[in-house]
């Protein structure tokens, strides 16, 4: 019994050492240390990985110290953020819309440190909390231009997982972009209730295609490949990608993509450029969105996209930031 107890004690001590050790930070200047909290894996070839890589670029270029924690669940949020704050990190970034409330709570407890609510817009008026995201509106508008120049049957559709504020914004500006090219094009949207259900994404796409829609814009996580599969299996159906460059997966059906520049977002957050307690939305002018077009888009369409990019940069187009 005694031996068991001592083994448990040793295991506990080792565990405690590891827990405190893996994110400990030196005695350096507070402003120059950054901690990033990720909801998923930093190898997911998506949002988690790219924002993390942005922070690593800042580390390399600016010589800051960094730490991170992956796969932080809803119930761990407060604990993890608080832990980083207690260790004295100058900037603590919560990566993802689900961190809003936890960041507000901890930011009030540690008023001398900076907190960044990433992929969010609401700071709750806490002075040391800054919100930053990429512009879903600019992405939607450019996607709309591409889609309207591609459709032959004047029917285009958006497929998403669930309606959150950014997706509503993307939808509104997608409609605005389509209408800017051709007012007669019908726009609809379908939610599949999941971000990773490939089969359902494909089913939703096939339902739209059967209804005559010939250009699809997926705004999904991993499930977007289902939309690509549906387009590949149908005749004369094309995809305008969002979030990632979908031509990398399906070059035969992707006319272009509005790529979210997560790496740039992570870089700007970690470099300490944005710490003013306001909300920053990185649009075309701030390098938050990178539109890419392929050979399937007509020359006319490409010219329209270029024109729209310039207009967005100059702030001449009436969509949400």
């Amino acid at each position, binding site marked *: 019994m005694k031996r068991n107890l001592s083994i448990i004690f040793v295991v506990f001590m080792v565990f405690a050492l590891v827990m405190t050790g893996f994110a400990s930070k030196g005695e350096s200047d507070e402003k120059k240390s950054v901690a990033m909290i990720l909801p998923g894996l930093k190898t997911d*070839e998506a949002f988690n990985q790219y924002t993390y890589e942005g922070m690593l670029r800042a580390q390399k270029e600016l010589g800051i110290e960094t730490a991170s924690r992956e796969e932080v669940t809803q119930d761990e949020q407060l604990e993890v953020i608080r832990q980083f704050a207690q260790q004295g990190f100058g900037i603590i970034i919560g990566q993802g819309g689900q961190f809003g409330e936890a960041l507000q709570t901890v930011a009030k407890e540690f008023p001398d440190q900076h907190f960044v609510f990433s992929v969010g817009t609401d700071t709750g008026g806490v002075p040391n909390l800054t919100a930053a995201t990429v512009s879903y509106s600019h992405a939607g508008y450019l996607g709309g231009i591409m889609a309207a120049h591609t459709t032959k049957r004047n029917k285009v559709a958006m497929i998403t997982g669930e309606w959150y504020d950014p997706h509503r914004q993307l939808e509104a500006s997608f409609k605005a972009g389509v209408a800017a090219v051709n007012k007669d094009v019908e726009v*609809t*949207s*379908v939610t599949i209730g999941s971000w*990773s259900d490939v*089969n359902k994404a494909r089913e*939703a796409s096939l339902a739209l295609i059967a*209804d005559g829609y010939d250009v699809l814009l997926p705004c999904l*996580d991993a499930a977007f490949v289902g939309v690509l599969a549906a387009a590949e299996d149908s005749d004369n159906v094309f995809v305008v990608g969002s979030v990632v460059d979908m031509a990398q997966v399906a070059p035969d059906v992707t006319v272009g993509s509005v790529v979210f520049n997560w790496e740039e977002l992570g870089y700007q957050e970690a470099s300490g450029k944005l710490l003013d307690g306001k909300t920053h939305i990185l649009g075309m002018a701030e390098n938050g969105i990178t539109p890419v077009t392929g050979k399937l888009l007509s020359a006319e369409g490409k010219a329209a996209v270029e024109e729209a990019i310039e207009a967005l940069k100059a702030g001449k187009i009436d969509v949400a930031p």
Partner: protein
Amino acid sequence: MSLDMIVNWMQATLRWSVPLILVSTGEVFAERSGVINMGIEGIMLSGALCGIAVSFFTGGVFMAVLVTMALGAMMGLAVAFLTVSRRTNQVVTGLMINMLAMGGTNLLFALLSESRRTRVATFPVLFPQSMHNIPIIGPILFKQPISTWVALILPILSGIVLYKTTWGLNVRAVGDNPQSAATVGLSVIKIKYQTVVLSGIFAALGGCVLTLGEVGYFASGGMTAGRGFIVLAAVVVGGWDPFKTALACLVFGAADAAQLRFQAMGSVIPYQFLQMLPYLVTVIALTIMVEHSRVPKTWGAAYDRRDV
């Protein structure tokens, strides 16, 4: 509503239901013998990735099916060992398998990053092109991949096995009264092992059809999205009968295919309600069917041969 749309909707219903029917076939046998294999969601997910991975590396769909079945058998064996031999709680064991599969597939798929960008070979279509154009039944039946035909024949076959063979009778006896079954000389443990391994094989196969049926892609983050749990509900709705369970899967598929079409048409009904529709149908069916169905007597209970 035109004929084309109805045909299209029926095609979608079949595509949706086929993986569910395959998974439910095995689950009916496991539950008939008294064991609820709650791990089918995770086994399905593992089967989905296994199918993609083997098809990606070997290019052979047949090979992919064989390897997936072997994986399913192994996972089924693990569930059987825990729930039958070790008498662990069947719900907890299932959830553990599901969590393990979720983390495991995410990790393994991250290592297979090449296959993310490649659409792998999928199941062949049995019938020649000329038969696809037969009105109505052409697109609904003859254009479907081989897996659809397997799923349509399977409930009939498993009905025969369950009700007309000695082994089927043994399975039912073990689920209803294992003590009596043991008294007449049946090996209760062995039969439970057999059915649970069977449920593992079919769950993996169902997952494999999910990715290799027509899609040809895998996605991390749990692409089965609760289909295993829908099957668990379908088995109860179907009253532990292979044929009625398959019917329940078809109804669910039809409801989901319909709601996506309503959304596409821009219906005035809020999308949340439409998304809920298939589940609502399931709940209503459950409430109605529970009256008429007969639960296996030792459903979900552990069997200990020392109990009298």
